[in-house]
């Protein structure tokens, strides 16, 4: 647990630092995620140590979005003015992206399976 939390926070810290140094082109947590993946692939023992904590955190991933989501109360004036445009844009683009992602995935997977 202690080792796992230290690893997760440590790699995020490294990631955020590199992101700041490189001008923020790639977000810090994503750099941390990539580096941790490389290290875990090389060290299976560390992976087994980090696994339970990582799984616990990921099982409740949805909870972590709640505080930002409550921020909706601050955006009510703009949502009232442009709510229709925003709502339709979100529904259409999310459905389209889901479909596009799944269809591209299947189309290429089918070619490989053949």
């Amino acid at each position, binding site marked *: 647990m202690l080792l796992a939390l230290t690893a*997760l*926070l440590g790699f*995020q810290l490294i*990631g955020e630092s590199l992101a700041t140094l490189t001008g*923020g082109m*790639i*977000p*810090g*947590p*994503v750099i*941390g*995620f*990539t580096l*941790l*993946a490389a290290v*875990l692939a090389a060290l299976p023992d560390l*992976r087994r140590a980090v*696994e339970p904590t*990582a799984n616990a*955190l*990921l099982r409740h*991933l*949805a*909870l972590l*979005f709640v*505080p*930002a*989501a*409550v*921020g*909706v*109360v*601050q*955006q009510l004036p*703009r*949502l009232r003015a*442009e709510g*229709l*445009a*925003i709502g339709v*844009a*979100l*529904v259409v*683009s*999310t459905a*389209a*992206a*889901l*479909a*596009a*992602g*799944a*269809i*591209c*995935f*299947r*189309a*290429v*997977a089918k070619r*490989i399976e053949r």
Partner: protein
Amino acid sequence: MEEVFRLWVYLSRTPLLWLTATLVAYAAADWISARLRRTPLANPVLLAVVILVLLLAATGTEYRVYFDGAQFVHFMLGPATVALAVPLVREARQIRRLLLPVIAALLGGSITSAVTAVAVGWLLGADPATLASLAPKSVTTPIAMSIAQSIGGIPALTAVCVILTGIIGAVFLSPLMRAIGVSDEAAQGFAAGVAAHGIGTARAFQIGELAGTFAGLGLALNGIATSILVPLLARLLR
């Protein structure tokens, strides 16, 4: 009565109250969702937000005060994103085998999301700051907010759009996949992660471990892809 008031003054100044309220609201929302057999419409994030917004309104609490407490939960989004490396490495062999479909779906989903969001918003007359806030809405909150900031959007509005996108994606995932005839768990999960980040990923984990793992991969890769594609798109449109 005066004691109650004094207690309230004390509690409203410590982070403890709203931190606990966030956890309680989410636990209640998760319980309701489980009782309704995880029907996608009873999304735990949506329910928790409704509970908390009503609570803030009833107690006359400002969002800033709420966030002072809740920020500790919000902070964990960063380490959780890093933690997605664990299922990624565990399923490395599966993923390597499906590398080409993954790349195709990443580009397809990522570009479709940003382009259709901006195009539909523009057609319906949204102003430029709103369009810039919509463009990165398929990636996880901290990443989307920093992209919005860099292209002239409103980070707080982006946070709201990101969450709504996640909820819409989680609600649509299963019915939409049935409609287009995709039953492959890896394809469903990856699309969910690309289109609807962590909330889509949470939904994919309900479908299965494989779907969840590919969703986590999609979320992470789209964090990279969108932070390159959206600023590029913004420059083209300017």
